[in-house]
C-alpha cells in the first residue's frame, strides 16, 4: 500500500474516521473452502471495477473440494490488487488479510509485511480449532502478531445476531459471515455494495430468508466499520486513468471461451469443442456449453483422447474443432495431434497449464508444458504454439490460434495457465465488427485441371485444400500413413517422405510471415539487458521492469505471443543486447529454445512454486543480472 496524501474525512457525516488516499492496495480474503471466499473476492472485485480502479486478482484454492474443516489443507483464498494507476499483478504481499478462522490466519500470515492489517474472525480461536490449525497458543493473545495491526472481530457472533430475524438455523446463519466480512472491507475502502445487494437478491430469489440474511450480514459488516471506533481510518483509491470505452472484468477461462465463440462467428464455422473435465480447464467447457445459439457444440467425451478425436472428426467435416485440457490431458492427446499434423486439418488444442509432472498441482499454475507443446509427439510433428499474456488477452490469443489453424490447416496449441485461467482483470470490450475475419476457403472443385489433388498446396501459405465430405467430385481418402505429395495417396517413397517432413515444417515456419512486428518495451531506448517472457509472466515482468526503471536501471522487455514459429526479427533483437534474461515458471524451457534457435547465452530465472512470480523478488533477480551486465 502506498500512501499518497492524507486528508480529513469528506465522506459526509458517515466519516467520523479519517480518510487516507492510497495509490494501490492488496487485499486477501482467506477462509475455509466452504466459507465462500472466492465469491466474496469476486464481489469485491466487481465493486472495485465499477469504481474505475485498475485491478488484478489471484484465486488460490486447494484441489480438495472440501478438505477437513478448519485445517490448513482446506484454506482457500482470493487476492485482489487494485489501484488508481496501472496494475500488472495481483500483488506480492497483502496490505490487508481477512482471515475467517485460525487455519486461514496461519496459512497466510507469513506473507504479510510488518504493519499490515489483519482482520480476524475471532470466533473460532478456541482450543480445538487452534490445535487443528497447528497453534499451540492463541496467536491473538500470545504476542506473536505484534508486528501487525490486528483487528479481532467476532464476525460469526455479530453475523448470527444480525440475521436472527430471518429464522435461519445457526449453521446457515453463520454461513453468511462472508458477507459481513465483505461489508466491512467494502466500508474500509469506500466500495459501494449496491451491486452485491442486487447480486444476492438475484442469486437467492427463491429463498427469501437467505436473500434477506445475506443482505443483512453485508450491511451489518459495513455498519460495524462505520459505527464502532475499531477502525481509525478508511482508505480511498482513486479511479485509474484508462482508455475510454466499455469495460467488464473477465477471467482468462471466460475470455478464452469468448475468443473461441468469436472465432466461430468471424469464420462462419461451427465451433465444436470436445473436452474431458480437468482442472483448471473445465470452466472453458462449462462456458462454451452455454452458447449453442451462437453456433457452438460441446461434447463431454469419455476421455481426453476421445475429446480430441471428436474435435478432429468435426474439423474433418468442416467445423472449427477445439479441445480443451491441462497438461496430463495434453499428454494423452499427443497421438491425435500428430494425426492432425499429418491430415493437415484445423484444430485448436487448449492447454491450461498446471503444476506437474503427473497429477502434480491441479489448482496451481506453472509454465512447464512449453516443450511438451512444441515437441511432445512422435516423429517430426511441428505444431504452432500461441500463448496469452493476461486474463483478457486470452480472448485475442484464442482468435489468433483459430486464425492460424484455419489458414494453415494445422493443429495449434494455445498455452494458457492456471493463473490466467482463474485470475481476472478489467477488459476494454472490443468492437466485434473490428475483430479479424477468418476465411475457411473450403475447396469446392478441382484444383489441377479436371482432377482434385488433396495435397496440392497454396504456394503462399503451403496450406492444403480443406475439402469436406459432401463436396461432390472431391472424394478422397486421408490418413496417418505418409502421404504422397499432391495426390495424398499412401507413399513409402524415401524421397517423398523427406520432402513431406520438410514441407510440413516449412508450412509452420511460413506462419512467421503473417505475424506483426515485435513490440519491445524499452522506454529509454538504450537498455543493455533484455528480459524475454512468454505467457502469464507478462504482468510480473512488466512490474519488475517498471520498479527497476524507477530505481534508474535501463532494462528492456519483450513478451512472446508466438512460441512456434518464433516471431521474425527475434534473433536480431536478442543479439542487440549485452544480456538476455528469461524468467519462466519452469526450469528454463524458453531459454533453452532461444539458446538453440538463436545461439544466444540466454540466462534463466525460474520459479516453480505453483504461484506467479512476485514482482519484488523478480525485480531482485533481474537487478542481479543488470549489475553483472553493467560491470
Amino acid at each position, binding site marked *: 500500500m502506498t500512501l499518497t496524501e492524507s486528508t480529513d474525512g469528506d465522506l459526509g457525516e458517515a466519516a467520523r474516521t479519517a480518510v487516507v488516499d492510497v495509490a494501490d492496495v492488496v487485499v486477501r480474503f482467506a477462509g475455509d473452502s466452504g466459507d465462500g471466499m472466492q465469491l466474496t473476492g469476486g464481489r469485491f472485485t466487481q465493486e472495485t471495477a465499477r469504481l474505475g480502479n485498475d485491478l488484478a486478482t489471484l484465486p488460490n484454492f486447494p484441489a480438495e473440494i472440501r478438505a477437513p474443516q478448519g485445517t490448513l489443507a482446506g484454506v482457500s483464498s482470493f487476492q485482489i490488487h487494485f489501484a488508481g494507476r496501472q496494475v500488472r499483478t495481483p500483488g506480492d504481499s497483502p496490505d490487508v488479510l481477512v482471515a475467517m478462522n485460525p487455519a486461514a490466519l496461519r496459512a497466510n500470515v507469513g506473507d504479510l509485511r510488518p504493519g499490515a492489517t489483519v482482520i480476524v474472525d475471532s470466533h473460532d480461536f478456541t482450543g480445538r480449532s487452534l490445535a487443528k490449525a497447528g497453534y499451540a497458543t492463541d496467536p491473538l493473545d500470545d504476542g506473536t502478531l505484534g508486528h501487525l495491526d490486528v483487528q479481532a472481530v467476532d464476525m460469526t457472533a455479530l453475523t448470527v445476531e444480525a440475521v436472527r430475524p430471518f429464522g435461519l438455523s445457526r449453521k446457515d446463519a453463520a454461513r453468511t459471515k462472508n458477507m459481513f466480512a465483505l461489508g466491512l472491507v467494502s466500508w474500509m475502502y469506500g466500495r459501494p455494495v449496491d451491486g452485491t445487494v442486487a447480486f444476492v437478491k438475484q442469486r437467492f430469489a427463491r429463498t427469501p430468508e437467505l436473500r434477506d440474511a445475506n443482505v443483512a450480514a453485508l450491511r451489518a459488516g459495513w455498519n460495524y466499520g462505520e459505527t464502532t471506533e475499531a477502525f481509525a481510518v478508511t482508505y480511498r483509491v482513486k479511479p485509474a486513468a484508462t482508455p475510454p470505452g466499455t469495460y467488464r472484468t473477465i477471467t482468462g477461462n471466460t475470455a478464452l471461451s469468448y475468443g473461441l465463440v468469436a472465432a466461430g462467428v468471424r469464420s462462419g464455422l461451427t465451433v465444436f469443442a470436445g473436452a474431458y473435465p480437468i482442472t483448471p480447464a473445465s470452466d472453458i467447457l462449462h462456458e462454451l456449453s452455454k452458447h449453442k*445459439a451462437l453456433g457452438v457444440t460441446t461434447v463431454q467425451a469419455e476421455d481426453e*483422447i476421445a475429446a480430441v478425436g*471428436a474435435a478432429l472428426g468435426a474439423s474433418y467435416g468442416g467445423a472449427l474443432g477445439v479441445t480443451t485440457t491441462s497438461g496430463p490431458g495434453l499428454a494423452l492427446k499427443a497421438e491425435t495431434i500428430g494425426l492432425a499434423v499429418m491430415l493437415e486439418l484445423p484444430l485448436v488444442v487448449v492447454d491450461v497449464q498446471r503444476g506437474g509432472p503427473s497429477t502434480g498441482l491441479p489448482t496451481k499454475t506453472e509454465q512447464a508444458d512449453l516443450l511438451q507443446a512444441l515437441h511432445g509427439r512422435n516423429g517430426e510433428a511441428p505444431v504452432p504454439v500461441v500463448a496469452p499474456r493476461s486474463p483478457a488477452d486470452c480472448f485475442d490469443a484464442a482468435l489468433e490460434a483459430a486464425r492460424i489453424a484455419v489458414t494453415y490447416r494445422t493443429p495449434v496449441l494455445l498455452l494458457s495457465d492456471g493463473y490466467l485461467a482463474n485470475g481476472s482483470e478489467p477488459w476494454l470490450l472490443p468492437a466485434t465488427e473490428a475483430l479479424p475475419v477468418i476465411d475457411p476457403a473450403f475447396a469446392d472443385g478441382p484444383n489441377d485441371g479436371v482432377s482434385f489433388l488433396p495435397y496440392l498446396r497454396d504456394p503462399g501459405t503451403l496450406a492444403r485444400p480443406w475439402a469436406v465430405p459432401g*463436396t461432390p467430385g472431391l472424394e478422397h481418402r486421408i490418413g496417418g500413413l505418409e502421404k504422397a505429395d499432391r495426390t495424398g495417396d499412401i507413399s513409402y517413397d524415401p524421397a517423398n517422405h523427406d520432402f513431406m517432413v520438410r514441407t510440413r515444417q516449412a508450412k509452420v515456419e511460413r506462419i512467421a510471415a503473417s505475424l506483426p512486428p515485435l513490440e519491445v518495451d524499452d522506454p529509454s531506448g538504450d537498455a543493455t539487458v533484455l528480459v524475454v517472457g512468454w505467457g502469464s509472466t507478462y504482468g510480473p515482468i512488466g512490474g519488475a521492469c517498471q520498479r527497476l526503471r524507477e530505481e534508474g536501471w535501463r532494462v528492456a522487455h519483450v513478451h512472446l505471443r508466438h512460441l512456434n514459429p518464433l516471431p521474425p526479427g527475434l534473433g536480431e533483437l536478442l543479439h542487440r543486447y549485452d544480456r538476455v534474461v528469461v524468467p519462466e515458471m519452469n526450469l528454463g524451457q524458453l531459454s533453452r529454445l532461444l539458446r538453440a534457435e538463436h545461439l544466444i547465452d540466454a540466462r534463466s530465472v525460474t520459479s516453480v512454486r505453483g504461484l506467479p512470480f512476485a514482482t519484488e523478488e523478480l525485480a531482485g533477480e533481474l537487478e542481479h543480472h543488470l549489475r553483472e551486465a553493467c560491470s
Partner: protein
Amino acid sequence: MTTHAQQDLPFPGLAGVPEADAPQTRKDFASDQEVRWCPGCGDYAVLAAVQGFLPQLGLRKENIVFVSGIGCSSRFPYYLDTYGMHSIHGRAPAIATGLAVTRPDLSVWVVTGDGDALSIGGNHLVHALRRNVNVTILLFNNRVYGLTKGQYSPTSELGKVTKSTPFGSVDAPLDPVRLALGAEATFVARTIDSDRQHLTEVLTAAAAHRGAALVEILQNCPVFNDGAFDALKSKDSAADSIVRLVEGAPVRFGAPGEDGLGARAVVREPASGMLRVVDQVAADDEVVVHDPQDVATAFALAGMSASGAAAPTPVGIFRQVQRPTYDDLVREQSRQAGWGETDREAGLEDLLHGGDTWSVA
C-alpha cells in the same frame, strides 16, 4: 437435392443424407487404389459385399464417409471412392462421433477390427454404443493381430499359441456381441465374411437403423489364424455350428427334422427360465422365438458360443430397438437454443457486453 425423410423406408437411419441423382453401380464405389490385403483374406469378400451393397442405399457418394482405425481391416477406406479417413489405433468411433454430431447430412461408417475396437479402442466403442451415435460400425473379427504379424487378440480363445503366447494364451476372450449388448447398443448383429447374402442382409438392416449399429463380421485371416471359422463354413458342420437368428422365427438349427426345420433348438426351461440347447426338439419344448427387442434373451443366446468349442454360434441381428440418437439429441438441443436462427454477430456483441460492465468516458 432430395434427402431421405425419417419415415422413408427402407433406410430411416439415413434420414437427412442427400440421395443420388442417378442409379449407381459397384464400380462407382471402387477407388483407384490397388487392394493390398493378403491373398485369400476375408476382407476381400467384405469389400466386395460393401461395394455391391452401397448402390442400394441410393446416396450421393460424396455424403458417405468411412472412418477406420489401425489394423488390416482399417485399410478399407482407401478402396472405396467415398470420403474416408484412416485414423489412429482404436479412435475411429471418437472421430466418427465428432463428424456425425456436426454433419447430419453424412452417412458415417466405422471400420475396425478385434484389436482396434476391443483392445486399444474398447473405451470409445462402448461409449459410441451407449450414446447411440448414428454410425454403422463394422467390426472385422479374425481373432488375431494380423498387421503386427500374429499375436493373440482380445477375442482369441484361451490356450491359443501365438508369437506372443508360445505357451498358450491365458487371457479370457471377450465377446463383442455381449459387450455391445451390455453397452445398451440399439443394433447388434453378427455375420460371416463368406456368406455374401447374409452379410448384405445384415448390412442393409444396419444401414437402415438410426443409431449406433454394431456388426461383428467373423473374418478369416489365412496367414495367422487360418480356419478359425471353418466349422461355421464347412458344408458338413455348418448346419450344427450356426444358429441363424431371424425375427419372429423359432431358434432351430442342425439337420432338418420332420417339420423341415432344424432338429436342434434353443429351448427355455419352464422352471428356471434358463436357455438350453436340445438335440432333438420335442413337442412340449418351449422353443425360443427370436425377438430382437428382448435383450436378456439376446444376451443368453450370444453366450451360447462361449460355452465351449462345440457350442453353436448364433448369427443375425441379436438386438434392434429404437432409442433417440445422441447426435439427433445434440442438434435438437441446439435448435431449441436458437441455433441457426440467432444472428451470431449480434449474439456475440451481447455476450461480450453481458454481465457487469462500466463505461469510461
